[in-house]
């Protein structure tokens, strides 16, 4: 039944292996490196090589490795490319920020790489055991990174909260996997499909297992009611970590969710649609409503990230409908890419305005930014418009595809909730813009070349790609899920 390991097996997860090895080496090299910026550049070099390997690996798309434990398909290549790019952006934002906050420690970069290799493995996992393995592999470095501002109490508290709730969520995933194994007698996704098709699987057990896995992954991507850790962890963590965490971890979590549910559990979709419907409606409502009273920009963006998880889940609700599944997966991927770009830009602005000792994080502190730094304020306006989903930004195009998928699946009430909550979100996003342009104040920014570059670049991308979104959507719709 099991075949011996071949070279092809290693090629299927080549970037993951390389990144993990590179992170180990970096950890050792860092011991003898005096200037931590060397470590940062080496980490960025590793990510660039990872992108190269991904490109090389693309010739083998459609192969499975290690006895179908991992697969290499268009979906995984798309997600992994996005993950590697978001790692590069995260390192660029952290580069000056860590030094300014006095927490420039070499371990930051290997930890980011370890976490990224876990995320990339997650996007390729074709077996529930590998899903759990990579979930832990990506989470543990993130817990450490959240508490990275040691000895700052808020950061340590955030790290501990994230760790405890994350470990709890990991337990849910394992329990779900155990139930699925009990139902289908296998943890391989293709085995589960076969078991359901042949009628061997105990369906009620399988649905319970799927629901528990949904809970566990819902924790990771911050879906209401499993979102409690998000505001505290996002606020307490150093901003550069939050930027990375809110983009990349969400990406990996949704990648696993899409693969597991769209492939293995697509036959359960009739049972799961009401659950997903309720969860996504609740997430959009709670995320957007709780963002309104926030005065701290990090907390506001945390609730906004919960709301966006709701929008993505909304498009994914109809995953089992064969006519819609492909459109909805493409829309999810497109939105994740759009959200990554916008999110990094917004966090770039937050990082530029933050000063040591948690200063410069109040939304009121953005008053006068429009007069003093017009270019930066323009960038922030673009990001806020994109998060609302107004033209001319990527957020609008992303939401357009999401709503198109939802309407194609005939879930009109859900789409209405989505539109209404988007309207609500305009309230708190525009408040930042109003503060920047219509109130007077004297904000202070720290001109860090990398953070400024990234913020500007993301603003340009947000506008330009929204004018010509076709190629990105084409790529997203080419990102097919494969098992064999």
């Amino acid at each position, binding site marked *: 039944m099991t075949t*011996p*390991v071949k070279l092809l097996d290693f090629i299927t997860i080549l970037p993951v292996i390389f990144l993990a090895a590179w992170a*180990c080496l970096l*950890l*050792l090299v860092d*011991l*003898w490196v005096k200037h931590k910026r060397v470590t940062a550049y080496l980490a960025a070099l590793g990510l660039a090589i990872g992108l190269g390997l991904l490109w090389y690996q693309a010739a083998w798309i459609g192969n499975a490795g290690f006895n179908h434990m991992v697969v290499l398909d268009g979906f995984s290549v798309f997600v992994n490319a996005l993950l590697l790019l978001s790692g590069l952006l995260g390192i660029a934002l952290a580069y000056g920020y860590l030094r300014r906050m006095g927490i420039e420690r070499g371990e930051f970069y290997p930890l980011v790489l370890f976490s990224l290799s876990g995320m990339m493995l997650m996007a390729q996992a074709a077996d529930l055991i590998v899903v759990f393995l990579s979930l832990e592999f990506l989470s543990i470095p993130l817990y450490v990174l959240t508490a990275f501002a040691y000895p700052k109490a808020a950061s340590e508290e955030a790290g501990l909260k994230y760790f405890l709730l994350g470990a709890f969520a990991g337990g849910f995933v394992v329990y779900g996997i155990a139930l699925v194994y009990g139902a289908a007698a296998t943890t391989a996704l293709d085995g589960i499909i076969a078991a359901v098709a042949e009628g061997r699987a105990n369906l009620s057990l399988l649905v319970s297992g799927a629901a528990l896995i949904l809970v566990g992954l819902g924790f990771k991507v911050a879906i209401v009611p499993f979102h409690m850790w998000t505001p505290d962890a996002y606020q307490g963590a150093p901003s550069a970590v939050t930027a990375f965490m809110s983009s990349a971890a969400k990406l990996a979590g949704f990648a696993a969710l899409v693969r597991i549910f769209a492939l293995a559990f697509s036959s359960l979709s009739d049972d799961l649609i009401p659950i997903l419907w309720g969860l996504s409606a609740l997430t959009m409502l709670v995320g957007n409503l709780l963002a309104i009273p926030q005065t701290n920009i990090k907390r506001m963006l945390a609730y906004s990230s919960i709301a966006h998880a709701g929008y993505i889940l909304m498009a994914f609700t109809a995953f089992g409908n064969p006519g819609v599944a492909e459109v909805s997966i493409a829309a999810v991927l497109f939105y994740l890419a759009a959200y990554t770009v916008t999110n990094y830009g917004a966090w770039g602005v937050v990082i530029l305005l933050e000063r040591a000792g948690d200063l410069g994080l109040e939304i009121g502190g953005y008053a006068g930014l429009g007069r003093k730094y017009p270019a930066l304020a323009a960038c922030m306006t673009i990001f806020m418009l994109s998060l609302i989903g107004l033209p001319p930004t990527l957020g609008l195009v992303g939401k357009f595809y999401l709503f198109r998928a939802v309407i194609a699946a005939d879930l009109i009430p859900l789409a209405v909730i989505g539109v209404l909550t988007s309207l609500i979100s305009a309230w708190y996003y525009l408040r930042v813009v109003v503060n920047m342009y219509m109130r007077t104040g004297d904000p202070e920014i720290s001109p860090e070349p990398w953070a400024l570059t990234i913020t500007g670049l993301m603003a340009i991308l947000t506008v330009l790609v929204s004018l010509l979104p076709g190629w990105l959507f084409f790529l997203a719709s080419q990102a097919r899920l494969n098992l064999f």
Partner: protein
Amino acid sequence: MPNPWVFIGLFIIIAAIIPIGAIVVALILGPKKPNPIKQSTYECGLETVGDSLVQFKAQYYVFALAFLIFDVEAVFLFPWAIAMNKMPLYVALEGVIFIVILVAGLVYTWRKGALEWV
């Protein structure tokens, strides 16, 4: 050939008999001349200094962690070493990679000064 589990059963019985026997023999044969010093609590033969409910140095934690890692490594390496002549090359290499990763961890702990007692 008896059931191989018999040996495990025998092992458990013998493992229980030896310490119990030693204590019982000491109870029967040992002279009993108690005095306050003998009756007092002791820790590795040394006289306790101050309260015995003290806070331990957090550094023990790092040592325990490093010890545990290499302890577990040994557990993994035994089956690997025993099956050495039956396994394909890549499995042998996997074991070597495992050791190399742990050695890298040791180098890291060492260089960070976690192995020095302060």
